[in-house]
């Protein structure tokens, strides 16, 4: 039972990690936002 729970948790973690990696890759490939010069940032 413990092994089964650990296996399920491991699969879940691996799935989340894969999803996170894909999201990360997508985010890094987005077009750069043109920011106004000298601003502190935007909301």
């Amino acid at each position, binding site marked *: 039972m413990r092994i089964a729970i650990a296996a399920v948790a491991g699969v879940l973690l691996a799935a989340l990690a894969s*999803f996170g990696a894909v999201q990360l890759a997508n985010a890094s490939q987005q077009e750069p936002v043109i*920011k106004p010069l000298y*601003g502190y940032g935007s909301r």
Partner: protein
Amino acid sequence: MKRTGWVWPGVTGLVLGLLALGPGLAPGFLLSFDMVFTPGPRFSAMTFGLTGTVPRHVPSDAFGVALAHVLPGDVAQKAVLLGIFVLASMAAASLVPTRRVVPRVAAGAVYAWNPFVAERLLLGHWAFLLGYAALPLVAGAAARAAEPGGGRRLTRALVPAAIGGFAGVAVSALVAGAVVLCRPERKRGLAKAVAAVVVLSLPWLVTGWLRPSGMPGAPEGVGAFAARADTPFGALGSLFTLGGAWNAATVPPGYGTPLLAVVWLVVVVASVVAFARTRTDGTAGLAIAAGAGYVLAALGVVAAPLLRGLIEAWPGFAVLRDGQQYVAPLAVVVAVGFGVLADRAADRRLDALGVLAVLLPLVLLPGLAWGAAGRLRPVHYPDAWARAREIVRADPVPGDVLILPWATYREYPWNGGRTSLDALPRYLDRRGILSDAVVIGRTVVPAEDPRARALDPVVRAGGPLTARLAAHGIRYVAFDAETSGNAYYARLGGAQRVLADADLVLYRLPDPARPREDSAPAALAGTAWAVTLMSVVWSFAASGITLATRSLRHPRGKAP
């Protein structure tokens, strides 16, 4: 707790810090928003808040300069940043009521690796994060403040927050106050807590309070600095999941996507519930601090007119403007609750789940890894900056440096176009004057520096600048952006161009008037520093190893 009990949380924090900074650990400086470290900095009037500017950088700048006298500036910066991760992990681990290693490590991992840390790190609030890292220690020390030696213990725990200045102290004071009020002998505990907070705040309290031009509140900044949604759960849900910083550019890549956000929300809810069922000294106070902090964090979102009114009534309430900072106590609750969950898994002999729990924060927030996915990259200051410093340093004629373009923040090409505070005022040894008005989208928070306000019409008006700037005590005009064909050059007739480089152009003005600057009395500021430093020394004297005492007592011990 045995002293060795700190090792694994500490190692975990160090590994997480190394992973978070990644390539940022290479030689060079990390310039991100408000985080500015420079090579070979010197103590100056500005360091101690004696230039008339609002002393937000007191005493963190002094800490940075002092550290840079021991280590190279960039090494000092990395040491501080790694120290935040190590301290955060160790401190959070200390509050988990178990002797098992894995649950404490899991709590440390969540506390050191979450959206709050990521967004504040990218925003460059390293000094505030020092206070955040020590917040669990403050909670633990406050729970025992009324005991003999409790005042010293609490003062020690508050030192990192004191380095962070008023924002760091405000959050820590909230936690310390709530915890001591929920304990027996609350009067004695409260007296010690108030004394510790006040004494450690003196350097910025004195310079801020006695600032001749008063403390600006700038209520127009309430909307700009209010929490924003960085998850599908809106601003309030984002705050609950420890994100929600006002600046969209500080959201780690990949954070807030629905699947990861939902899983993280489940983790947060489960952790908060687990914490609520935990009964140890100080947990009630910590829960109240977390709730109060969440309300304060949400003020700018749900009650902006109220917050504006408060700031108009007393500018000191401006400390609530960047409200997201106040979810820090909730992060402590989440971390401890997460550790408790991992401990329960161990109770049920599901040790593997506990190990996976340690990895979960990384899985849910991969965007913090490797220099926040490339957003923290080390850079070297251009050679022209060093030459400018030598020129200015060698000049015996007094006078200040006006820095153009007339703005606070830069996107230096040599810093990859990443936004950072203009580093020149800290890089040069002389007083640097720039427009400290802050632009956020279409909102402009007015300048606070009286010298900048006085020079603003001069800079913005047309016509020759040289004589008018010299009359204001300006000896140099430095351009650290838009150096190619700047229209201002034509207005500096009679000034000598002493340095011309793509990264910096420097003009020297003849016959500047002697600069005059109103600030808090230096003698009083010096006395404040002396009292604070003596109290810090007193708190550490004969204390043994600071972190080696258990912070929160737990009624039942468990086998490791």
